[in-house]
């Protein structure tokens, strides 16, 4: 074999055009160089079979503070991460709104607000407490006494609530003492207004979460598609170039 540097230049198509023809002429005359070139082409073919395993990359630089460079960190942000975040937001929103989902004869019922829970708490009776089937006379007496005390507490709280409620000026009988029915209607109206506001706010949050999730997913998909197109383009171009080069080399090595 004569000169491995020139052979490599020819093998990798880096030999200047002016020297190429002369080297091909040399190849026709030199069996050693021809054999060596053929072996090197075969080795390159074997090398082309080795590719790295597919790996999820998707690196993204994100900024965790307004200032650049030094205050960044790496993270992988797939769509599922945003989905998990959206579910967490929904859970928090549901917790704040105290959502109750019930399916019964009335169909699916969704309720929000804290009023239901407070009713049970005001009564002071655990909702999950078991109910005995029968009591002794002494137990009855104790329970009646407790019930009486609770009723007194409720009545006292009711009076304090009536005193605390400030009615709109336009409401009739503002200056006069309200009847129980009027008070009940007013309280119900306040509760209904509160629930309506909460439902509206929850709907807005849900809409925002869904919109953010869709936007993120669309962005992820666009990035994935762009990456695939790029990889496909690079791979195809590289393959074509390699095959052209190897075909040419094969033709040259087989000329004689």
């Amino acid at each position, binding site marked *: 074999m004569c000169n*491995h*540097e020139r*052979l*490599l*230049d020819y093998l*990798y198509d*880096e030999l200047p055009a002016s020297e190429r023809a002369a080297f091909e002429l040399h190849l026709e005359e030199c069996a050693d160089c021809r054999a060596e070139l*053929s*072996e*090197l*082409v*075969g*080795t*390159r*073919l*074997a*090398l082309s*079979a*080795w*590719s*790295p*395993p*597919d*790996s999820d*990359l*998707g*690196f*993204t*630089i*994100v*900024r965790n503070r307004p200032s*650049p*460079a*030094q205050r*960044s960190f*790496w993270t992988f942000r797939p769509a599922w991460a945003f989905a998990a975040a959206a579910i967490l937001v929904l859970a928090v929103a549901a917790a704040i709104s105290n959502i109750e989902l019930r399916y019964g004869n009335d169909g699916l019922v969704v309720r929000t607000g804290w009023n239901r829970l407070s009713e049970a708490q005001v009564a002071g009776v655990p909702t999950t407490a078991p109910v005995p089937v029968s009591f002794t006379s002494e137990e009855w007496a104790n329970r009646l006494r407790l019930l009486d005390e609770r009723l007194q507490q409720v009545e006292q709280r009711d009076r304090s609530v009536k005193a605390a409620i400030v009615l709109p000026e336009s409401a009739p009988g503002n200056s006069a003492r309200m009847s129980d029915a009027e008070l009940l209607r007013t309280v119900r109206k306040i509760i209904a207004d509160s629930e309506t506001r909460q439902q509206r706010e929850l709907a807005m949050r849900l809409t925002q979460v869904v919109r953010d999730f869709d936007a993120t997913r669309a962005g992820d998909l666009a*990035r994935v598609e*762009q*990456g695939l197109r*790029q*990889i496909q383009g*690079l791979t195809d171009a*590289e393959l074509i*170039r390699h095959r052209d080069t*190897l075909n040419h080399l*094969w033709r040259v*090595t087989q000329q004689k």
Partner: protein
Amino acid sequence: MASTDEELVARSRGGDLDSFNQLVLRWERPIYALAYRVIGREEDARDVAQETFLRAFRALAGFKGQAKFSSWLYRITLNLCRDWIRRERRAPVAQAPEGVDLLELASSAEPTETVEDLVSRRELGRAVAKAMSTLPDEQRTAIVLKEYHGLTFQEIADLLDCPLSTVKTRLYQGLTVLRRELELAGVESTFGSATRKDH
């Protein structure tokens, strides 16, 4: 029309994070492939690729465009690979899973390949990976940069800070050792089909 690396680098230096992430998207796979072929471990190659971009981002202010952005990335990657090899104090390990996953094979198939071709190519790839792991670092690096990343001899010399003739010598010696190792492994290299012999 897609922006060039130089345009994206300029915008990134101006604080445009999206532009830098476009560069990441463009180069993450070649950088990962380079790291994998040099150190031979998938997970570590991912880490090296990730660290490469992080370091590049942090050092972006100091990159004046004196070299191609890709060459700069390659240099960072190779330095990290060198650190990894020194830290691990061992030769790169060629990962060669035992089983052949046909679904995985099918996903990497070229349109004209049969299943037999696929299996043969996969086995050949494993033999190459093993043979590459026997090479000294500098020979393996020269082969990887030339063969898989298409750098010119001069670009490799600049990247590795060594004379042009040294690059060619490393490449030639590496290919020669590879050929011998592949023959020992039963790989018959003939044009058109580098296949593995069954013994």
